[in-house]
């Protein structure tokens, strides 16, 4: 861990929307390369980065499209700078192939998706949480990555920094799954002193080029990177590859290559996953939520508690990888899970799978365009308590 460079840290108490706070998170995290393409409701992130980067030694470029943006971000990260892009639904769809390349080449980078209603052009200016499964499964092939879900402008700042840390530690693209509501909500954001912001630095190899294998994993299953231009002369590819980084087209290499990419995240879940728990100790019913829906759920839970219903809250700060172990543990002790989502049922499928029929799972759905009325969540709690 190192401390943040004060050049990028706008220490103080601010009144910022989530998009601007995420941009400040990137500046504080030491992100110095940004390639993006305008799309509502994420554009304000790019705008703030364009404004700030020339003042803090960063390079901002508005690319010709989202395909180019994510490709440039991967190149920028290989070039040695922490790199980020930001988009919303349609652009997220266009980025899918190269998010897969980022997974395959193991490139640390951050992609922010300020979710809006879909499918297609959908609701450009209104919120949804309907890209959650796309984040998990949208690129082709088997893969694991990390997706976080902030629920306030403060968290847009904090979790953007956390995303850079996770991406450097696990050499994987990290997705910050915001939504229009969080992105455009303005609240107090406290940016601490640079000395209080801890950053994970890239793990470069100390081996000689002759001894270095670009995809030989360390104990935590993450291989060390080599800086370009220092004699390593490494090769990296989106093709299935061996430890030398060379393409190798056979079932054994596929198993070894992809198997490790999955294990790298799956076997380190306990270290990666972050959840917030509230009233869980005596809970019969647990509201499981993420992003803006986790804030909308608070008044519903409080109201039910006041009425004596033993309801707790589990907030997924990390949505992917999913806290499977915790849900399995809880499922044996609680009567029901309730999940409000601004979609027709996405993360709830994973919740239901992990509950394994041992606890009832109820979805409180919302098609998008606005957030839930807390009453609908309260009603679901009451129904489940009957």
């Amino acid at each position, binding site marked *: 861990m*190192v401390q943040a460079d004060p*050049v990028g840290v706008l220490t103080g108490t601010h009144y910022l929307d989530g998009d601007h706070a995420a941009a400040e998170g990137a500046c504080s995290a030491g992100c*110095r*390369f940004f*390639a993006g393409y305008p799309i509502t409701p994420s554009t304000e992130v790019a705008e703030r980065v364009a404004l700030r*980067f*020339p*003042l*803090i*030694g*960063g*390079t901002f*470029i508005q*690319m*010709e*499209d989202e*395909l*180019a*943006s994510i*490709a*440039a*971000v*991967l*190149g*920028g*990260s*290989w*070039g*040695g*700078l922490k*790199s980020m892009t930001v988009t919303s639904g349609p652009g997220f769809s266009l980025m899918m*192939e*190269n998010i897969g*390349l980022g997974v395959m*080449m193991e490139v640390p980078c951050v992609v922010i998706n300020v979710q809006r209603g879909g499918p297609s052009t959908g609701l450009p200016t209104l919120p949804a949480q309907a890209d959650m499964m796309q984040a998990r499964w949208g690129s082709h092939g088997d893969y694991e990555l990390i997706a976080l879900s902030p629920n306030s402008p403060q968290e847009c700042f904090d979790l953007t920094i956390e995303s850079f840390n996770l991406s450097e530690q696990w050499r994987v693209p990290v997705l910050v799954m915001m939504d229009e509501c969080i992105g455009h909500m303005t609240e107090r954001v406290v940016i601490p002193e640079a000395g209080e912001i801890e950053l994970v*630095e*890239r793990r*470069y*190899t*100390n*081996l*000689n*080029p002759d001894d270095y294998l670009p995809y030989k994993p360390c104990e935590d299953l993450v291989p060390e990177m*080599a*800086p*370009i*231009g*220092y*004699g*390593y*002369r*490494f*090769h*990296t*590819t*989106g*093709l299935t590859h061996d430890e*030398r980084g*060379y*393409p190798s087209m056979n079932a054994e290499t596929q198993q070894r290559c992809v198997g490790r990419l999955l294990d790298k995240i799956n076997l380190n879940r306990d270290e990666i996953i972050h959840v917030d728990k509230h009233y869980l100790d005596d809970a019969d019913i647990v509201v499981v939520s993420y992003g803006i829906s986790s804030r909308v759920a608070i008044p519903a839970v409080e109201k039910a508690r006041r009425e004596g219903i033993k309801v707790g809250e589990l907030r997924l700060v990390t949505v992917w990888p999913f806290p499977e172990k915790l849900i399995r543990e809880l499922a044996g002790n609680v009567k029901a899970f309730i999940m409000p989502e601004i979609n027709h049922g996405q993360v709830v499928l994973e919740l239901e799978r992990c509950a394994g029929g041992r606890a009832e799972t109820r979805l409180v759905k919302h098609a998008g365009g606005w957030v839930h009325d807390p009453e609908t969540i309260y009603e679901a709690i009451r129904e489940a308590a009957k």
Partner: protein
Amino acid sequence: MTVTEVKPDTTRKIPEHPKSLLLRMDRMPHIWCSRCGIGITVGCFASAMEKTGLSPDDITVTSGIGCTGRVAGYVKADSFHTTHGRAIPFTVGLALTRPDLKHVVFSGDGDLISIGGNHFIHAARRNQNMLVICVNNFTYAMTGGQLAPTTPVTARATTAPYGSFERPFSLPTLAISAGASYVARWTSLHIRRITDSMTEALQRRGFRFIEIIAPCSTIYARRNKLGTGLDLMKYYYENSVIDHNASVDDLDIGFQSKIVVGKFVDKDRPSYGKSMHEHFRKVLGNKYQPPVSGKMEIDKSWSGCTESQDTTVTDEVQS
């Protein structure tokens, strides 16, 4: 009948490949067909590297997908085999974060001009610092010979079984009109001229484009009954006309037509990085912080084994 066992002659020394400094000999043999033009261009590139005196550690090589897309896998430099069409934007990221290095994109016509066409024109427009080498074989060879945006009218492809009727792109015309700093075209037998162009272009900055018209021996030549790859290579060479001052109207290529080759553009225009730097310095004055490079970040955070080179300010951010 007696069978004589043939023993390998172990006394015979296999000479080292003359270009082994720049090639991944542990990956040989390569996948390219015999009489394909791609290997020649890679040989020319290795010669150009020798001529410039650049070390493999001074460059990166990035490819997209396809036959030429495999070049990155055979060049012994830090090399990136990316997704279809995205070698140029990937290299934009490399070039903007490592302006101290030379960045080379080596890919085919389908990859760079069809699926990657938008990136090609915008990188040329912005004059991004990269040398783009395009081996144009008029077809998608790796996938079996489909129609490309370069396929000449009447030439046959698997997806144009009755011959193509689409007007193809002239790649130098596209590069010139989009604003490239350096544009040249040769055929794969113009070995000395390709090498000279690559040598020259490696030493320039900005967006540099070299097209090499090369035969696809197995797919395009056979389907169009054009003889062997070598026949076609000779045909292109013999039917080429060197005209450095050619008008863009003369650069179109028809089926087995004459091919105008030459160095069409060689001009000094500030690169994207340089324009950005000069602009911000002018409008922001002392508030402007010149961009940190990946090299600066690496030197700061890395306690690696090799001697760290000097952190020199690159000409991108020099006055």
